[in-house]
């Protein structure tokens, strides 16, 4: 048993007794309550739950956008639960790729500029950024859309560009929050295919959804209700 644990690789992310409380005017809200979760490397995990269940908060905690009020979070072998804001920003830049339901591209930047944005905050030179963004966009099938602005392309294409942005720096962990929520069925299918192939390429993926069909493509599904994992 001990031998086995030693042999096992460090998980991509592990949460221990994670708690997230908000104080509102009408009292304290517990968005996450004693969450224990381990995400293995290369795993694809679906987080399911109704709205308000805490699944987005959990995703934000995993993505270092939100800080738990208690508990311990190890990301890629490092305890990140007590990092300051600058360090968390740096870890976000290095370890996390985000894909959002509403795409969240910067409207006045071209798809190429959007895709290369994470590299800007690493001080990568513009020429290299442009090359790498072009490569990343080619991988998601957008090589003909490099200089388009987000509102000049379809929702599916915007989400592809967002995925290119999330993967441009090859983060160990990809976090997707209802990535097909704003898309029609056809676009949604192709985005899911893309996510699947990214996962097959070895990237750890955590997918938040309330759609059982989407969750079905994950290896593991974790239900969440009222801030507790079931």
């Amino acid at each position: 048993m001990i031998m086995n644990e030693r042999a096992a690789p460090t998980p991509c992310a592990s949460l221990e007794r994670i708690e997230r409380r908000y104080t509102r005017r009408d009292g304290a809200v517990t968005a996450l309550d004693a969450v224990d979760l381990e995400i293995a490397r290369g795993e694809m995990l679906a987080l399911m739950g109704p709205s308000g269940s805490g699944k987005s908060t959990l995703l934000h905690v995993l993505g270092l956008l939100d800080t738990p009020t208690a508990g311990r979070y190890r990301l890629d072998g490092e305890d990140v639960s007590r990092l300051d804001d600058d360090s968390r920003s740096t870890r976000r830049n290095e370890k996390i790729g985000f894909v959002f339901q509403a795409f969240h591209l910067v409207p006045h930047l071209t798809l190429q500029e959007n895709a290369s944005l994470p590299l800007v905050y690493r001080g990568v030179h513009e020429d290299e950024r442009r090359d790498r963004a072009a490569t990343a966009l080619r991988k998601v099938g957008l090589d003909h859309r490099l200089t388009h602005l987000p509102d000049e392309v379809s929702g599916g294409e915007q989400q592809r560009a967002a995925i290119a942005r999330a993967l441009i720096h090859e983060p160990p962990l990809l976090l997707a929050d209802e990535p097909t929520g704003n898309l029609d069925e056809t676009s949604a299918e192709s985005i899911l295919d893309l996510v699947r192939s990214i996962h097959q390429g070895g990237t750890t993926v955590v997918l938040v959804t309330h759609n059982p069909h989407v969750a079905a493509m994950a290896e593991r599904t974790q239900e969440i209700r009222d801030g507790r994992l079931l």
Partner: protein
Amino acid sequence: MRIQPRDLLGAAIAGIRLYRLRSSLTIASFAAGTAAAVALLAITGGARQELLDRIQRLGANLVSIHAIGEAGREAPPALTISDAIAIEQSLSFARDIAPVRVVPASVLLPDEQITVQVVGTTPDYFALRGLSFTRGRAFSATENDEGRAVCVAGDGTARRLAPEGVVYGSLVKVGQRWCRVIGILAPEAATTGEDADRRLYVPISTTLRRDLSSRQALGEILLRIADGVDPERAAQVVKRTLLRRHDGIEHFSIETAQALLRQQRSARGLLDALLAAVALLALCLGGVALGSQAWQSVSLRRGEIAIRRAIGARRKEILAQFLLEGIMLAAAGAALGVGLGVAGSGFASTLGNWPWLLPTRSLAATLAAILVLGVAATLYPAYRAATLDPVAALRHER
């Protein structure tokens, strides 16, 4: 900070271009404020320089008495040599005194005749006016008393008298009399206005005795008072003395350095105040415009800020981006304003014949203050941008 300066600049420029109309208006108000400030600096700078020149020429303890108007043949002269003597002898604070007679006279060279202002005065004059010599010397007290046939030429006069040759030491015919040129003055700075350059100086006794003019009138009396005596009070005493001697008729004006300063202030005060008010108002408007633009920009771009934060921008990188936008708008306005201010005030000073001088240190201080204003106006919005909660912002930007 890991973001490269040029990328920071690029982000700031992109931000400015997002709201072109509003950015232009902000730049315009900064430009107007800067232009007014620059014009104010240039015009007051010029006035100040002119005043300093005049005071330097006059000297702090110098009192100058000018005859006013052209006294008619019947009217008694406004100022006479005996006035000068009376001042020198009866007023205890009088130190050096130089009566000045200015008479236009033709000066004859062996083969040419020109008209110059001939100034009859005493040897003290050159020291009182701070004139120096490039060659030779002033006439001596003896030469003055005896009315010797000597003269001193201003630099311009010397060159007019002998464009190629050397006039020093030669004889020129002044009026009806041949005089030897015993001194040449150093050229005067152009700003002083009075044409010491274009004059020929002769002992005053020459002009009184000989026939350059039969009248005893003086144009001016220069008086140096003792150190420690208030020039204003000295001027009052001189005025009373002269009024007594001229039956209460004030045919003269008395200038002191202080009086010049006072005149300058009262004449310029209104214009300066107006320009200062315009500059301050426009810059305040610019600051408000910039602040509100930055505020709106941050509010409208919460999504962009949240995205940048989510993909790893640090707070200081967001802060720097928005501060830089503000600084660039302020700097663009300031640059435009300096151009407008220099052109405008230069044009106005040409039209109004005002002196124009832009003191670089004041200009640098003004520009620094404008940039500080730019930072100050943007600081709070930029801080709000930097500390925005990305989770909340992303949730609202659906």
